[in-house]
């Protein structure tokens, strides 16, 4: 592996970031240009636009409060954007319109008169500037009411975040819009549908307003496509190179036609997709994290195959078009270019594409385009779009072999594997229609949703399950501050048996869950009230019919997600108490509580006993696994009882993003032997080093959780040494491991193939390993761009590997 990396460095200048040598000259140049943020003239940095009102609001704080370290910077960021904002001339009568129409009109104005239409040298799919901070178009009274609501929310949020209970927020994006509809009927068709509702005398006022806003947004799409058409012709006229001239004319043609009209060819379809997607990110302001194109290998396949059959494109040419489309997604990161192009933890846009999976009849859906896209992933070695591969019982050996072959070559897994049967079981549990389940697609990192009409939020609420252990052991008080933050469940020294302790834990867990949902309800209601997204609503099934915005519960399916954090830490803690305090009576409760409060200072023997003499989740040991399963069932079934003010039901998931690190200092020492500050467990992974029986046992422990009640999906990371991949025989064993995972494991797996020594080297010599990609809890990142804590975490994970 080291050899491989070094040779890449020798071939490539630093800015090349090791693309495959097979890339065409065009794509290689485009890729170089993307990486040359500090040199290139074009950037997709944030452009702020204001109505001119002094109460300009661009980014919302509550849309970022699930990233506490970023949310806290928002007030400053806001005033900076406010100062830099371009004033947009408002159409007559603007302020008399309802908010959603104002938002649509403002968006159309920005697209028509302000958003630059730039075409980069050599590119085939066009559309460059999409990072915006649009005014929310509120009048003074609205702005003031909104700010009050946000302040009320932030107060509650601080009270939760600051003591390590968790966080929440009105997280934007994170859905699969109905892009296939754009390909099917074009924006012209979408506009016509909306126009019908406008003109239908039976429509309600809300339906009519919503439809009018969609009509205006459709205009915006046509306008921008026309502007790119013009720009292409302008460049074509000035172009001396005949080949490029012809290409620019083709681009002009593509823009003139799609996405306004349904595309007929693969290039037209890619252009339609990109224009629609980039405008969605523009309309979302804070360029749409987790806006996921979904099953692209399925809905683009007919265009691809038709072009190949008709001889319009060779496979090589199709690949180049695809790569030109691919690279565009990465420009989302320009918004933070000046604070570093390393793309660390706060930059996971998660524009997820989904490959493979099944057809309606359960047969294998992978096709030639699936394989072509896998080639592209390997050649491009870029962060976006992030690929997930769906596998299931009938996935072909060919696809699995290809997946494992790619795993064995990459430094880190370039994609995440989603297990259909297990993922679908969760979607079925949450009540989605049976005949749609096969067509699900993950968003963001690994969060499972239906495609096209499911406005389910993900990572909205992030709950630290281990905090409930601390509270149960301290009568509802935070151990660091002594503040009463949970119910008084009694002095644990007085508990008669394990049932009493377990009951206290559940009461605490239920209480903090209620509090965090209560806070999130404010953000959800506020977003629905003050932040309509008419452009997105045009792409989400149900909004036009219901007359409600996608943010306000207009979609056909609506959920909010509570992501459980530190499941294994909580489970191991409960298991230790059960075993050592109540079963063997080796430790007295008072002794344990004192030791936890003292952060195990002077209690090393006790801590060692907790570490070594209690059962741990991750070993296929029913003692610990049943406790983990019961915790998971309990809180996720509780969460499912709640419905937000906009009619979105809360549901569970396990994607602990960086919170297992963020809440480590605010979570007291835990009875699993963890000191305050040591990391909590990540998603459904065992505590680092607690799994001692190897991958088969870890997989079964994850499966033992019965993840149906956490239908959003569960992130599970496993690391393998390169030795495991060294020859075809070993790789076959990994294929078999994946097949078994589908039967007895969880919903989503990321495989890292890196040895700890390589990582340590990379930490010491970041410049030499700038291209080292690793997957972290559901998204990939360049290792050297991660914070030292996470780097250490990944190294620790590696060193513990058997």
């Amino acid at each position, binding site marked *: 592996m080291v050899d491989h990396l070094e040779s890449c460095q020798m071939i490539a200048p630093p800015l090349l970031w090791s693309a495959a040598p097979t890339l065409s000259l065009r794509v290689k140049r485009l890729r170089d240009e993307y990486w040359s943020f500090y040199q290139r003239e074009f950037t997709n940095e944030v452009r702020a636009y204001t109505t001119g009102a002094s109460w300009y609001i661009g980014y919302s704080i509550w849309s970022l409060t699930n990233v506490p370290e970023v949310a806290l910077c928002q007030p400053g960021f806001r005033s900076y954007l406010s100062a830099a904002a371009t004033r947009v001339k408002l159409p007559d009568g603007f302020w008399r319109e309802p908010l959603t129409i104002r938002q649509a009109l403002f968006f159309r104005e920005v697209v028509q008169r302000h958003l630059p239409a730039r075409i980069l040298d050599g590119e085939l799919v066009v559309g460059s500037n999409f990072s915006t901070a649009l005014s929310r178009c509120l009048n003074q009274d609205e702005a003031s009411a909104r700010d009050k609501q946000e302040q009320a929310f932030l107060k509650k949020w601080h009270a939760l975040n600051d003591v390590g209970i968790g966080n929440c927020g009105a997280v934007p994006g994170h859905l699969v819009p109905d892009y296939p509809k754009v390909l099917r009927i074009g924006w012209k068709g979408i506009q016509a549908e909306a126009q019908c509702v406008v003109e239908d005398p039976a429509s309600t006022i809300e339906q009519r307003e919503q439809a009018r806003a969609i009509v205006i947004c459709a205009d915006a799409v046509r306008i921008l496509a026309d502007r790119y058409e013009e720009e292409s012709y302008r460049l074509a006229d000035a172009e001396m190179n005949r080949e490029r001239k012809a290409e620019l004319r083709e681009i002009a043609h593509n823009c003139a036609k799609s996405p306004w009209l349904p595309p007929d060819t693969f290039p037209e379809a890619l252009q339609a997709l990109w224009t629609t997607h980039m405008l969605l990110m523009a309309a979302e302001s804070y360029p749409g994290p987790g806006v996921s194109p979904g099953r692209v290998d399925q809905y683009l396949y007919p265009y691809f195959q038709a072009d190949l059959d008709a001889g319009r494109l060779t496979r090589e040419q199709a690949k180049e078009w695809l790569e030109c489309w691919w690279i565009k997604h990465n420009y989302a990161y320009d918004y933070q270019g000046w604070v570093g192009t390393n793309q660390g933890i706060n930059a996971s846009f998660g524009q997820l594409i989904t490959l493979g999976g099944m057809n309606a009849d359960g047969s294998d859906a992978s096709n030639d385009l699936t394989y072509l896209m896998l080639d592209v992933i390997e050649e491009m070695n870029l962060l976006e779009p992030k690929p997930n591969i769906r596998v299931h019982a009938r996935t072909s050996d060919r696809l699995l072999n290809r997946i494992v072959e790619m795993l064995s070559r990459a430094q880190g897994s370039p994609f995440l594997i989603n297990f259909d049967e297990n993922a679908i079981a969760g979607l079925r549990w949450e009540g989605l229609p049976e005949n749609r389940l096969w067509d699900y697609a993950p968003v963001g990192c690994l969060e499972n949703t239906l495609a096209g009409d499911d406005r389910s939020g993900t990572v909205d609420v992030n709950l630290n399950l281990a905090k409930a252990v601390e509270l149960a052991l301290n009568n509802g008080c935070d151990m660091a501050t002594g503040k009463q933050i949970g119910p008084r469940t009694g002095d644990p020294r007085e508990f008669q048996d394990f049932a009493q302790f377990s009951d206290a834990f559940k009461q605490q867990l239920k209480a903090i869950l209620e509090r965090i949902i209560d806070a999130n309800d404010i953000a959800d209601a506020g977003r629905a009230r003050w932040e309509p997204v008419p452009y997105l609503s045009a792409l989400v099934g149900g909004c036009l019919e219901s007359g409600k915005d996608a943010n306000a519960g207009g979609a056909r399916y609506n959920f909010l997600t509570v992501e459980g954090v530190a499941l294994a830490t909580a489970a191991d803690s409960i298991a230790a108490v059960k075993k050592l305090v109540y079963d063997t009576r080796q430790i007295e409760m008072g002794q344990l509580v004192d030791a936890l409060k003292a952060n195990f200072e002077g209690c*090393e*023997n*006790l*801590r*060692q*006993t907790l*570490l*070594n*003499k209690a059962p741990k989740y991750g070993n*296929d040991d029913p003692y610990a696994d049943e406790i983990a399963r019961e915790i998971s069932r309990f809180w996720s079934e509780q969460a499912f009882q709640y419905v937000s003010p906009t009619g979105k039901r809360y549901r569970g998931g396990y994607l602990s993003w960086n919170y297992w690190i963020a809440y480590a200092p605010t979570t007291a020492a835990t009875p699993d032997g963890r000191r305050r500050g040591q990391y909590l467990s990540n998603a459904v992974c065992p505590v680092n080093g607690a799994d001692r*029986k*190897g*991958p*088969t*046992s870890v997989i*079964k422990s994850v499966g033992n959780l019965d993840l149906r009640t956490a239908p959003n999906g569960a992130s599970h990371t496993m690391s393998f040494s390169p030795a*495991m991949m060294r020859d075809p025989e*070993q790789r*076959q*064993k990994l294929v*078999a*491991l994946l*097949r*078994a995972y589908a*039967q*007895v494991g969880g919903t989503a797996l990321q495989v890292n193939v890196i040895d700890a020594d390589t990582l340590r080297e990379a930490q010491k010599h970041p410049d030499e390993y700038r291209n080292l990609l690793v997957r972290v809890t559901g998204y990939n990142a360049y290792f050297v761009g991660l914070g030292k804590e996470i780097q250490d975490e990944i190294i620790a994970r590696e060193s513990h590997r*058997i």
Partner: protein
Amino acid sequence: MTTGLAFNLQQFSTEDGPGIRTTAFMKGCPLRCAWCHNPEGMSPHPDLMWYDVRCVGARECLRACAENALTLMPGGMQIDRARCTLCGKCADACPAAALEVIGKEWTPDALMEQLLKDKVFYETSGGGITFSGGEPMQQVDFLCEVLPRCQDAGLRVTLDTCGAVAWKRYARVLPFVDLVLLDLKIMDAARHQAATGVSNEIILDNARRIADAGKTMWIRTPVIPGYTDDRANIEAIARFIRDALPTVERWDLLAYTNLGKPKYHRLDMPYALEDAALFTHDEMEALGRVAAEIVPVARWSGATR
């Protein structure tokens, strides 16, 4: 009911037969190979091991030991193995799990429950159970209870054996075995005797009989500096395989590993290869070629310097 003594159950074992396996390492071995990397498998009884890296100096073990068999010295724990009764109280008392009784009694029921845990993985990979050691045939009565149950449960069984056990024992076990992994170490009888304490006559004889019985075999040769790594030895093994063992499906040359070294220290046993270095890639490659010229299914693996 017979019980078996195993010193490890290794799940996700990928080096001891086809597919993904669980390997049961049984205690007791008739051989005393100087290079053995599982010395805790030699004795047919449990052993007490102390792990220096885990010890936190809690001294609970000293208090727990009724025989006064433990002394914590500046250089580490001294175990008076003559006094130690292997009662395990020290291991129970140690909070850090620094003391461990190696070797656990298994009833057939308990073992089967463990072996069945990873059944799905065996099925998707064409794997199964490997009985290794030590020498599993030392506990043939236990195998005779467990192997038929494996067969009934649809688990495919590999027997990893040194070959130095009476044929009549193999005759009892082989009907329940799908694959035999057999070690062939040194072809010269005197050298074999010197290095392992046992003549190779019985091993070669059993090898022929296993082949005659039609059992598929994988031959394994540990390549040990100064013991088995000479070209003449490898060629002699190769010719034997070619001429006498028609059921051999593959032949692995396993490069010497020094991973066993700390175990000798923990068991207070001398280690003959204290200063031996790993082979170079080229050295293994050359031996691999020698082997493959005569036996095409030969290959080599293992860590190199």
